[in-house]
Structure formats: structure tokens, C-alpha cells
């Protein structure tokens, strides 16, 4: 017999009330926690892949689409640009690196990206097995691609046209796997990397089918490319110093057939668009938590009226008023802790489902289930709600007249 045992027994005694209070708290806390998790992990994924890329150039169109397709590999490309124009940028003294990208095919939904070795350097990925491709039609797999597809070094596969795994198969030319990258947590994990020339080669052999591809023209090096007139999809640019940021994007947009998009600006724009929805959900979550607090309050207040005689009895048996106050406080705090824990579990389950969906659609994994520092504050907030909800009705304990209460029945 101790204080805790009595409090827990009281909670168990009114199971439905306790359940309702804990459920409301769990919902509110679960929502906020899920928002925190998503916010943090999306932010992390977005910032990590953006790092070191100052500008993206590609065909004219939506700058956000260009960023999403070229850096994150989640949207369709805006079109093609001549390689000559991209290469011309290398002569600009402000430009440090130019990484051309060429895409348009996939294997089992994983994008095949033609690029230069600078891309691998930029993302600092190491080869886990085998070696990096060094001839046309050789590929190196991202760690996740290798895991999901089951491809091994030395295996060959035919790519499909398009970016979502539903296009025609290029059956006549097969890629050969020469290496597999270590997991890096970056976009490379979900890509199949190869030389730029592989993409050109595979499509040079397909002249008869190019008409069929016209509706996909944006994704594809269409037409009849000769050695000099090669196209690429886009290019990632690094500047030597911030001065480049001031002049180059403007020059490109004015003087070339390409557009320049700045990742930091586009991603901030994307987040501010998402932000409205996140703010609304957060407000709803705070309302739910407040209702949970009121529910705990009403539950304890009602039980205090019912248990008035019990309280007087315990006082007559030697309990102090502080003891009874602590008893109610523990009941409130216990419900808060239960609500908090269920909320945290709920948010993890939510994240798991969200991650499943994100993985299917974009190959991104949001699999970080560890407790966030912000969630500690959430615990304190839950405890505060429980404590206040318990403390308010406890005032009645200090006004209780033992003799009159015991004499009433």
C-alpha cells in the first residue's frame, strides 16, 4: 500500500474516463510529434542533397520542377539542353564545377542517371563492392537499388524507357553492373549511375522508335544527335564564390536557351507552401491537447465529488490534505505520461506508414524513429497539462469539512 498504488487503483476504477483522457492526449501529442518528425526528416533529406549545389541549369520551365528532378530525382525533367551550352559555362571564371546529368530511363523504377565522375565525388560516396563504371553501358548501383533489385556485380539488365518503371523495355542493349556503392543517406542510394555516353548510346540505336517517344520528349534526348550536338537533361553547378550567384543566373536566363534555378530559393518556397498546412495541423493538435486537459480536469473533478466521502474518510484515518493533493496529482501526471507514450508510439506508426508511401512513390526512406529533443518539451507540456488539470479540482480538498462530510450520510 502506498500513494502510487492508490492513485493507480483510482485510475483503473474509472477506466473509460481515464481512457478518454489518455486517448485525447495521445492524439494531440501524436500529431505534433509526427509533424516534428516529418518536418525534421524532410528538411534533413532536402538540405543534405542540396549541399554544395549552388545552381541548376536545364530546359526552361518550372524552376521548382528543375530542382526536384535534377537534385532529388522525384519529378519529371523540364526538357533537354545542348551539352555545348552547358559546357560553355565551364569557361566562366566564377564557376567551379559543372556536373551534367542525363536521364530518361529506369530499371524497376530506379532512375538511371548518366553523369560524370564529379557527381560521385560531390556526394562523397564510396564503392562497397567492385569498381565504378568506366565504359559505356557499365553501371554502378546505389546501395538501395542493389538491395531491392537483387542485382549483383556482373549481372546485366535492360532498362525501361521513362522514369516510373512503366515504359518500353530497351531490350537490345543491356547494362552491366560493375560496382555497388556504400549507403550514404543521399540521393545516390536510389540511383543507377553510368556514363553520359551510355544514355546517348542506348538511344542512338532506337531511331525507329523516336516518334513513339515524342510525348516523352522532355525526358529524352530526342532527334538525331550527332557527336557534337549531344543533349543533356540538366547540370549541377558550383560557384567559386558567392559573386557568381549575383550575375550568372541572370545571364543564363537572358542569353541562353536554358534556365537557371537556385536550389535554396526553390526549396524555401516549397517549404513555405507546405508550412501553411503544417501550421494548421499544429493548431488542431494544440486544440486536441487542450481538450484532453479539460477531459482530465472534468474526470478528476467529477470523481472528487463522488469521492468526497472517501477523501473525508482518508483524512479521518490520518491522511494529510497534501497527501490527497499528491494522490490526485499523480493521477493527472500518470494519465499525462500514458498519453505522451501512446502519442509517441502513434507518431512512429504514422511515420512508418508515411515512410512506406514515400518509399513507394519517391524511393525516399524516412526511417528515423529516435526521440527528438523537441519531444522532451512535448513531455513537459503533457505533464503540465496533467498537473494543472489535477491541481484545479484539488482546491476542493483544502476546503473539505471532514466532520460535516462524514455526518452527511
Amino acid at each position, binding site marked *: *500500500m*502506498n500513494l502510487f*498504488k*492508490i492513485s493507480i*487503483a*483510482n485510475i*483503473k*476504477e474509472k477506466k473509460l474516463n481515464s481512457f478518454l483522457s489518455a486517448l485525447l492526449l495521445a492524439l494531440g501529442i501524436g500529431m505534433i510529434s509526427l509533424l516534428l518528425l516529418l518536418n525534421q526528416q524532410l528538411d534533413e533529406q532536402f538540405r543534405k542533397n542540396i549541399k554544395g549545389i549552388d545552381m541548376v541549369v536545364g530546359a526552361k520551365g518550372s524552376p521548382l520542377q528543375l530542382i526536384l528532378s535534377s537534385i532529388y530525382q522525384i519529378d519529371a525533367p523540364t526538357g533537354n539542353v545542348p551539352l555545348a551550352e552547358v559546357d560553355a559555362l565551364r569557361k566562366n571564371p566564377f564557376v567551379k564545377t559543372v556536373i551534367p546529368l542525363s536521364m530518361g530511363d529506369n530499371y524497376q523504377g530506379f532512375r538511371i542517371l548518366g553523369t560524370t565522375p564529379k557527381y560521385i565525388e560531390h556526394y562523397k560516396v564510396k564503392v562497397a563492392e567492385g569498381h565504378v563504371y568506366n565504359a559505356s553501358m557499365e553501371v554502378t548501383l546505389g546501395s538501395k537499388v542493389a538491395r531491392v533489385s537483387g542485382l549483383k556485380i556482373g549481372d546485366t539488365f535492360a532498362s525501361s524507357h521513362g522514369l516510373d518503371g512503366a515504359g518500353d523495355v530497351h531490350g537490345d542493349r543491356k547494362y552491366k553492373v560493375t560496382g555497388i556503392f556504400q549507403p550514404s543517406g543521399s540521393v545516390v542510394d536510389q540511383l543507377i549511375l553510368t556514363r553520359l555516353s551510355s544514355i546517348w548510346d542506348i538511344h542512338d540505336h532506337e531511331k525507329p522508335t523516336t516518334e513513339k517517344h515524342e510525348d516523352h520528349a522532355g525526358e529524352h534526348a530526342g532527334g538525331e544527335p550527332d557527336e557534337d550536338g549531344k543533349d543533356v537533361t540538366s547540370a549541377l553547378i558550383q560557384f567559386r564564390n558567392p559573386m557568381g550567384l549575383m550575375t550568372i543566373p541572370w545571364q543564363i536566363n537572358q542569353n541562353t536557351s536554358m534556365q537557371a534555378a537556385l536550389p535554396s530559393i526553390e526549396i524555401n518556397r516549397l517549404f513555405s507552401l507546405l508550412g501553411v498546412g503544417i501550421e494548421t495541423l499544429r493548431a488542431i493538435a494544440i486544440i486536441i491537447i487542450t481538450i484532453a486537459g479539460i477531459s482530465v480536469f472534468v474526470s478528476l473533478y467529477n470523481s472528487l465529488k463522488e*469521492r468526497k*466521502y*472517501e477523501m473525508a*474518510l*482518508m*483524512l*479521518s*484515518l*490520518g*491522511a*494529510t490534505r497534501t*497527501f490527497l493533493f499528491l494522490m490526485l496529482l499523480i493521477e493527472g501526471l500518470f494519465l499525462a505520461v500514458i498519453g505522451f507514450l501512446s502519442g509517441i508510439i502513434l507518431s512512429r506508426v504514422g511515420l512508418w506508414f508515411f515512410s512506406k508511401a514515400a518509399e513507394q512513390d519517391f524511393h525516399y526512406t524516412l526511417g528515423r524513429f529516435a526521440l527528438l529533443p523537441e519531444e522532451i518539451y512535448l513531455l513537459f507540456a503533457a505533464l503540465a497539462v496533467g498537473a494543472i488539470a489535477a491541481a484545479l479540482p484539488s482546491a476542493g480538498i483544502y476546503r473539505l469539512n*471532514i*466532520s460535516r462530510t*462524514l*455526518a452527511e*450520510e
Partner: protein
Amino acid sequence: MITSHNLRFSYSPQKTFQFPDINCGDKETLLILGQSGKGKTTLLHLLALLLRPESGEVSVGGRSISHMEAEQIALIRAKSIGIIYQRAHFVSALSVIDNLLLSNFLAEKPQDRKKAIFLANELGFAEHLNKKTAQLSQGEQQRVSIARALMNEPNVILADEPTSNLDDINCQRVIELLKMQSALIGASLVVVTHDQRLKDEFSNQVIL
């Protein structure tokens, strides 16, 4: 042992009670008989130190409590006085045995599980120890509340209408148990009632 001297209490100027002196030594029994409205419960609450008298004196075990602090009084009540109320009330969330142990716990005494089981056997509710108190009949509940009053081996046992809700057989049984158990621990037994069935059971009587 419990004694009172010149006890006076008033709820309002029109409703004032003046009580006869009470004197009940160790192992003795005393019946206080009175009709409704005579201040029976008020007197019991004064003796149980739940109310402070307007004037007069109560002493428990030879110690006068008129000049004590509220906390000291609460501790004396918890340790030396066992109270049995007209209708048995319990902490409904706890089981029968936990309700018994609660009185040890709140009086800051070691929790004596063996004693609780012993009393349950003596008073005939041993098979109900793990039930909730609401599952017991009124007679059983009254016996549990007697056991609770005995748990701390008090100096004085005060019973407020312990038999008024019971039938004749249960009434007889409860009063026998009360007398026997209080004699066993050497306590004074004071019963306040209007129940005429108890008239012949007690030699010492005070009429209000």
C-alpha cells in the same frame, strides 16, 4: 481510556449542545443512547477529535488534547482511535485487504498483512479479502469496517450507530464482535446509538 469534561458545541446560537461527561476506562464499554437531533453524532465527532469543542476537554489515553496542534490531533486520531461509522465507507478503488492496510499506512504504522488476514478470519469475511468493498453485503461491509478500526490496535473504539442498518441477527453478531475484539486489545468501547436493541447489551449507559 477516553474521558470528556463539560463539552459544549454550537453550530449556531440557536443550536447549541451541552454534553454530559463521558468516562470509559480501558476494557470498559459504554453505550450512549439518544433520539435523533440530540447531538449523538456531534458528540461522537467531538470524542473522535474530528470537531473541536467550543469549551470543555477531551482526553484520550490520559492525554488531554485541548491544546494540541491540528496535525498532532490527526496523528493521535489515526493511531489511538478506531472509528466505525453508521454506514461503512471505503476507498472504493481498493480491495478489502488494501482498505484494511490503508489504515496502517495512513497512521504511519507498518502494514500488517497477517493481522488483516487474522481479523478477516475472526470476523468471517476471509473469502472476500481480494474483492472490491462494493461487492460485499451491508453486514459484511460493517464487519470489514470493524476490522479496519482494529487494525492499529487503538486505545479507544468509537462506533456511530453501528447496527442501525442491520437486521437482528447481524446486529447481535456485530455487537458481540465489537465487544469481544475491543476486550481482546484492551480498548475502551463507546457506542453511540438510538437502537433500542442494544439497551440490554451494555451495563454502562449515558442517555442524551
